[in-house]
């Protein structure tokens, strides 16, 4: 597992970077989504990957059970997934509106037209 996750992060980052250099709006967005997921995996792996007990806090002092997995990294990645989901939806809506009003989905051409 210690090799698989970093390798996955690397592959996702690389393919995302490749995609955001394309011209088509949708490909660029797919690239952003891949990179976002790579970052989420990176955050997720920051607490270390191992088999552990569920992190349920008990008692008045919120003591963690021994050998529990780290709940903070999971909470962080949950938040990050929600944020990237919302931003992806916003970006898709914006991309649709953009290519509708320009009649084109090539980012370079859109740039030229917007300057005019």
């Amino acid at each position: 597992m210690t090799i698989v996750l970093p390798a996955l992060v690397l592959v996702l980052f690389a393919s995302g970077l490749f995609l955001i250099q394309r011209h088509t709006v949708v490909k660029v967005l797919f690239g952003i989504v891949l990179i976002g997921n790579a970052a989420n995996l990176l955050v997720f792996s920051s607490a270390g990957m191992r088999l552990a007990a569920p992190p349920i806090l008990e008692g008045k002092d919120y003591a963690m059970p021994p050998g529990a997995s780290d709940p903070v990294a999971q909470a962080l990645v949950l938040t990050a997934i929600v944020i990237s989901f919302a931003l992806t939806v916003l970006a898709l809506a914006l991309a649709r509106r953009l290519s509708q009003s320009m009649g084109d989905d090539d980012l370079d051409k859109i740039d030229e037209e917007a300057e005019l």
Partner: protein
Amino acid sequence: MTWLPVLPVVVPLAMAVFMALTTRFGSEHRVKGIIGGLLHATVSTLLFATVAHQGTIETRLGSFPRPFTIFFEATPASAGLVALMSWVVTAALVVATATMDRPRLRRGFHSIAQVVLAAASGALLSGDLFNLFVWFELMLTASFVLVTLGSTPAQLASGFKYLLISLMASVFFLCACGLAYGWYGNLDLAKIAELQSSFSGPGPNMIGGLALVALAIKSAMFPMYAWLPDAYTAPPPGIAALLAAVSTKVAAFALLRIGTALFPPAGGLWFDILVWAGAATTIAGALAAIAINDVRRRLAFLLASQMGTVLVAIGLQSASVVVLLIAHEMVAMAGLFFAVAALGRTGSSPVARLAVGGGFLVCALAVAGIPPTSGFVAKFAFVQAGLLAENPLAVGAVLLSSLLSLFALLQAWQSTAHESEKSGAKLGWTVPAVCAATAALTLAGGLLAGPAVSGLKETVQGEVLR
């Protein structure tokens, strides 16, 4: 009073929801929007007064222990910036309401503006790295909507570019958060500052480098500022004024806090990069501003140039100067944007014309750092800090860019004088009044600076640079 730091976030969010719920067909929410701004201004001024009196207030939501809670920390510096930002944004709301077309107001400008206000306050007051990230994202999401509000082709194209580059920056910031948690086992900026000496290795450089790239994009550092002129020129000037007072400033303050948390006060490569990149930004921005004819685009480049000065100050590790510069720029640049919003429609009354023109001139002098404006005080403190840090080249770069900015602004002054003669739409009294008030605030910042600056040096140096 531990709930006080939450109010600047909760009040505008509640206001945004209230406006969204009470929307009927054709609602413009003019009054509600401005009342929302005033409410936020009141609450955040109250917070600042309390913090200035009692010292830092920490709030842990739900009273959970520290790593598991949403953590707010109102220091005198952050609370002061929230209060000032709140008044500037309220002024921008007034200008936007007076100058914006009805369809844009009907599409929910005011409730989105409240979200920007809430999220920016959250980002300034947040005490931990991940909450900072979340508030930042929320602020950016709302500002994408503001940039594209109205959906003209230019707005959509520049908004999409802004969105893409901000998403990339956010990914870097998120990676920095993840690595910081993996390295320190903690996201609390104060805690990380305590831990920094007990860890050695590549961690701080990795985290700091990622955070630097992310926040450099968001605070418009050269050469990553290409998004800024488009994003601040395409939407109506009221929206540009609002955004100019918020997003880049919040990014610069975050950069200051992250840098001081990660690295020892002895300095190092991270701070050196900021000094030189900041100096390049301030020169490049001012030169670009001179080369460009469009007044609003010129202001956008000047904004980037001003941010360069802040970045140099962060690199010089002078927290009080950074806060002073951010505060001064927030007001002065907003004043310029307000005056430009009034351009082309300076109507009948000579008093109104005088207020707009005078406001522009005073704020232009402030941006160039000429007494008796707040710009002089900020630049003076900056030069002092730069010479203390024995970095005369960076100081020279900033002073040169001040001269170039003055030249660019006086040129703009001449060209706008012609533009205001071919006026079309009428202008009420509100925008000139706001211009005059902003100019008065800038002047007051220059004239009454003594006690404010000494107070700032005492509190900020201690609070931010733990």
